[in-house]
C-alpha cells in the first residue's frame, strides 16, 4: 500500500471510501473462502466414495487379469490387447467455479469391445473399460479439488493480508490524518479567533 499521504479532509474522505471498499472486498473474499471450503469438503467426500468403488473395481480387474494370465499365459493377453485399434476420445471443457477454471471431462467415444477380442478376453476388456470411465471421474474430481484448493490458498493469503495489513494500515492512516486534520482545524480556529480579536482591538483603537 504505497500512497502519497496528503493531510487534507478531501484525502481523508477518499481514504474512508477506500477502507469501506476494502472491507466489503474482505467480506466477499471471506464468503468465497467459506464457499470454497464447503466445495472442497463435499468434493473430498465424493472422491472418497468414488475411490473406494474404483479400488474395488480395479481389484476385481486385477484379479481377473491374474487368473486369465495364469490360465492362458502372458503372451495370449499381450497379443489380444493389440487387437484394439479404436482410440478413446475425450473432451476437456473448462467450467468456471467461483472464478476458477476447472476441467470437466466428457467421454466422446469409448471403443466398441463386443466381438473385437477373443471371447475369453472380452469380459476382462469390458471390465477394464468400466474402470477407465471411473478413472476419468476420479481424475476430474482430483483436478477440481487441486485447483479449488490452490485458489483457496490464494484467497486465504488475500483475506489475511486484508485483515492483518491493509485494513489496519488504512485505519492507522485515517487516524493519523484525522488527528492532523483536527489539529489543523483547531489551529485554524484559534488563529481565526486571534485575528478576529486583533481586528476588534484595532477597530476600538481607531474609534477611540
Amino acid at each position, binding site marked *: 500500500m504505497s500512497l502519497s499521504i496528503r493531510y487534507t479532509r478531501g484525502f481523508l474522505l477518499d481514504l474512508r471510501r477506500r477502507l469501506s471498499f476494502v472491507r466489503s472486498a474482505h467480506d466477499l473474499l471471506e464468503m468465497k473462502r467459506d464457499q470454497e471450503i464447503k466445495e472442497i469438503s463435499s468434493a473430498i467426500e465424493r472422491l472418497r466414495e468414488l475411490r473406494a468403488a474404483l479400488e474395488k473395481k480395479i481389484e476385481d480387474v486385477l484379479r481377473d487379469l*491374474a487368473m486369465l494370465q495364469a490360465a492362458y*499365459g502372458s*503372451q495370449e493377453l499381450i497379443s489380444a490387447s*493389440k487387437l484394439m485399434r479404436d482410440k478413446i476420445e475425450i473432451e476437456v471443457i473448462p467450467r468456471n467455479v467461483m472464478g476458477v477454471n476447472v476441467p470437466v471431462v466428457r467421454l466422446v467415444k469409448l471403443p466398441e469391445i463386443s*466381438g473385437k477380442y*477373443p*471371447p475369453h478376453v472380452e469380459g*476382462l476388456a469390458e471390465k477394464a473399460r468400466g474402470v477407465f470411465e471411473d478413472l476419468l471421474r476420479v481424475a476430474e474430481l482430483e483436478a477440481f479439488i487441486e485447483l479449488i484448493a490452490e485458489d483457496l490458498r490464494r484467497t486465504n493469503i488475500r483475506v489475511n493480508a486484508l485483515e492483518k495489513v491493509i485494513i489496519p494500515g488504512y485505519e492507522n492512516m485515517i487516524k493519523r490524518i484525522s488527528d492532523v486534520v483536527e489539529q489543523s482545524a483547531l489551529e485554524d480556529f484559534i488563529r481565526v479567533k486571534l485575528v478576529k480579536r486583533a481586528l476588534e482591538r484595532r477597530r476600538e483603537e481607531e474609534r477611540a
Partner: protein
Amino acid sequence: MSSSALNQFIEGLSGTAYEHYISGSKTLDEIERGLAEALVDRLAALLSLAEGGARSFLKAYLGKYETINLAWILRMKIGESAGEELEMILLPTEKLGGMELKPLLEARDLQALRDAIQRSGMYELSKDADDPLQLEADLWRSHYRRVFKLASRIRISDNREVRGFLGLEVDLANLKTCMLALLRGWDPEKVKQLLIFNPAGIPLKKLREVVEEGDPKVLVERFRRFKGFLEKALASDEWALEFEGLRIMKRYADSQRISKFISFFYILKYILELEVEYRNLRAIAVAIHHNLPQSLRRSLLITD
C-alpha cells in the same frame, strides 16, 4: 510383485530339467519363456524319436503350437507391434518342424502376412475376411483338418481312442467359443463362423442350431456331458474354463484302458501330461507374481 518369491520358485525347480531354462530369470516374462522353451524342447525330443506316418501325424498335431504362434503374430501385426516385441512372445515352434517364422515377422502389414501364411500351403484363410477372430478360426480349422486327415492315415490299433482324444479337444474349443460368445451376446452368424469342423465329436450342425437359439442355458442342457465345464462360464469364470477343459482332457486320457502295452495313444497322453505340467508351473509363477491367495492358487492347478 515379490521377486524374492519368484526366486524361491526358481530355486524350487533347481535340480530339475527346468533349471537350465529358468535359472537366472529375473521377471515373470523370462520364467514363462523358459518354461515354454522347456516344453517345446521336450516335444521336439519326442518328435525326433518318431518315424513314418506317426511322425507326420505328431508333427501335424504339435502344429497347434505353431497355430497359436500364428494367431499371436496376426494380432500383433494388426496392432502394428514392432518385430522385436513380437519375437519376445513367440514359442520356438521351428524346433517342432514348423514353418519358418522370420518371413512372417517381416511382413509389412496384415495383407502381406496373410499372403505369407497362404504361401506356406499349410493354412487356408478366408479370402474376404478381415476380422482377426475369423482368421484365427481359419488357422485352427486348417490345423485340425490336417491333423484328422493324418490321424485317419496312420495304421495304429488305437485309432478310435486317438480320434476320440482329438474330437474332445475340438469339442471343448467349440463349446468354449459358443458359450462365451453367447454370454456376451455376439451375433450368432459371427459365432457360427468361428466353429471348427469336428469329424470325431459334436457335429457342427448341432452346434449351429444351439447358437441360433442364442441361449447359453440351452447349450448346458443340450450338452450335459460338458455341464461342469460350461457352468464355469455361467459363473463368469472365463479363466476356469481353460483349466476345466484341460482337466476333462486329462480325465479322458487317464480313463482310457489301452489294450496294448505299447500304444500310440500313450504318446498323446504324454504330450498332454507335458502340457499340463507346463500349464501348472506357469500358473504357479503367475500366482506368485500377482500374490494370489492360496485358495485361488489351488484352483489354478490341474491335478488328478
